């Protein structure tokens, strides 16, 4: 199931106040669905966007709102590649490693990114700025090679363009 960050070995920070601030939004989200449990994925997105990754505390918060067990939420978290169980970089890179991108030279470009950042698949730079995930097709194949940084797609990549994009981030 795609890239899964390892579960975090450090003690998880206390996200209780961040989660409290999300309660109002959570209530609106749950109300949109015909069954509360259906809000599980959406609530996880909401909490992860605010906290950076998913901790047991977050799983419990989601479980309360979605009226499911924390074990159920954990099973969901481990199934989907977009949920992180450990901190990722401020700029998380999904680098497409599927056919159309490979045909357009993504192997060398991926090597370039790894050398530049000094990390492998699943790695985070020591300063916490970047993390790298080798992803499957991002479905922008007509614009290959493609990577996603944070929310944004970047296409028709070259080594120069990658440098410009990554160096330009704060």
């Amino acid at each position, binding site marked *: 199931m795609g890239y899964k960050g390892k579960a975090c070995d450090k003690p998880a920070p206390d996200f209780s106040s961040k989660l409290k601030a999300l309660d109002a939004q959570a209530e609106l989200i749950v109300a949109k669905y015909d069954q509360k449990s259906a809000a599980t994925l959406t609530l996880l997105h909401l909490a992860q966007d605010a906290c950076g990754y998913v901790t047991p505390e977050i799983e419990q918060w989601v479980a309360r709102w979605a009226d499911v067990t924390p074990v159920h939420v954990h099973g969901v978290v481990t*199934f989907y590649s*977009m949920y992180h169980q450990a901190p990722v970089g401020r700029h998380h890179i999904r680098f497409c490693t599927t056919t159309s991108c490979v*045909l357009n030279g993504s192997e060398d470009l991926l090597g370039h990114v790894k050398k530049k950042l000094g990390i492998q698949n699943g790695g985070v730079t020591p300063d916490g700025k970047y993390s790298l995930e080798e992803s*499957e097709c991002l479905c*922008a194949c007509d614009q290959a090679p493609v990577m996603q940084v944070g929310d944004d797609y970047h296409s028709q990549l070259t080594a120069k363009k990658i440098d410009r994009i990554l160096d330009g981030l704060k």
Partner: protein
Amino acid sequence: MSEAILSRNFNIPDAHKLSVAEPRGAYETARKVIGALKPEEVTNTVLASNLRGLGGAGFPTGKKWQFIPKDSKKPVYLVINADEGEPGTCKDRYILEKDPHQLIEGILISAYAIGSHKAYIYIRGEYVLPYRNLQSAVDEAYAKGYLGKSVFGSGYAMDLVVHRGAGAYICGEETSLLNSLEGKRGYPRLKPPFPAIVGLFGCPTIINNVETIACVPHILKNGAAWFTALGSPGNGGTHLFSVSGHVEKPGVYELPMGVPLRDLIYKYAGGVKGGRALKAVIPGGMSAKILKADEIDVKMDYDGLKAAGTMLGSAGVMVMDETVCMVKMLYYATKFFSHESCGQCSPCREGTGWAHKLVTRIYRGEGSVKDLDTLLTIARNMEGRTICVFADAAAWPIQSYITKFRAEFEDYIVSGRGKAVAAELEAAGAHAH
């Protein structure tokens, strides 16, 4: 290029906004249909148009809609599959990002036809910009009363929720999608019961692809005969063909169903990059069997590609020139499927993993010719033995690449050149794991 229908707004700046889309005709047809036509009339028009599901399976859309039980006591749901994930496919993204009102209008008409008052759009999690444009279009439609308690003041109530996925290719499979939408792991369900009887939350549900639903307003506007005439026999309309890989002009091309594959590559996509010779084409996304250069005189529709032993699938066309190494291509195909198997059924979980291990061994120069036969056996044992057809789809590249390019595979193994390839990849630090 033929008349742009689905793609007519793709190059219009800000067409995702109602202020631009509406003067260009958005919601005109839905307004005329809802409340004025009988739901059966809408379904019959769609049936007569020969519209076939554009998510990959090509099932006649009107026929699917007729499976919804009449007078269902339970609510009926319409679910839009916007989980686009099939490698080589990038068509739905354009509709979602550039022209979401076209989709919403299609949802209104389609929901009305099946008697649904609530629809969900399941959009892949990585599609953030398309999600934002879509969600703001939904908000605009609510604000105008095009969604909500009384659509266009007709008294017909319609709610629409956009739901984001979270990164799992399997969730494009319709029953996996339903589980995911219900907040679970995306494991496919056994069929029957089919979703039209027992779908979302146990209720009758129609699942259609984004592009399929985007066709509906045009069919209702211009008539079934018009739509039928656009396409080829039994395959109505135009289709958004995604063309990528080694072509001069990769892109998404809206062309009539049945367009010759050769024209798609040479006439529309500008031919093979750098004037090089063609080696192979995957015509319908990663799951479709590969075609050799001398097999491209086929019509790009469901029937044409089936006759050629492959499938139209999602119409994701990936073009490979003469420089391409088929061992490497199979390595990336098996990587994809082993990565994305949901793990529910053993033949798929074990088969995709084992196949990828063997292909990796070959790719790195450590394989034997015997491995090729083992791979074919693994592929055979994956077909038709699992809950969904993911495992079949995983078997097809293995079978077609090895059978059609057997001499190349054997030569690669015997020559031992994989060792050099492995060393090169190691040096570049590039190997994808």
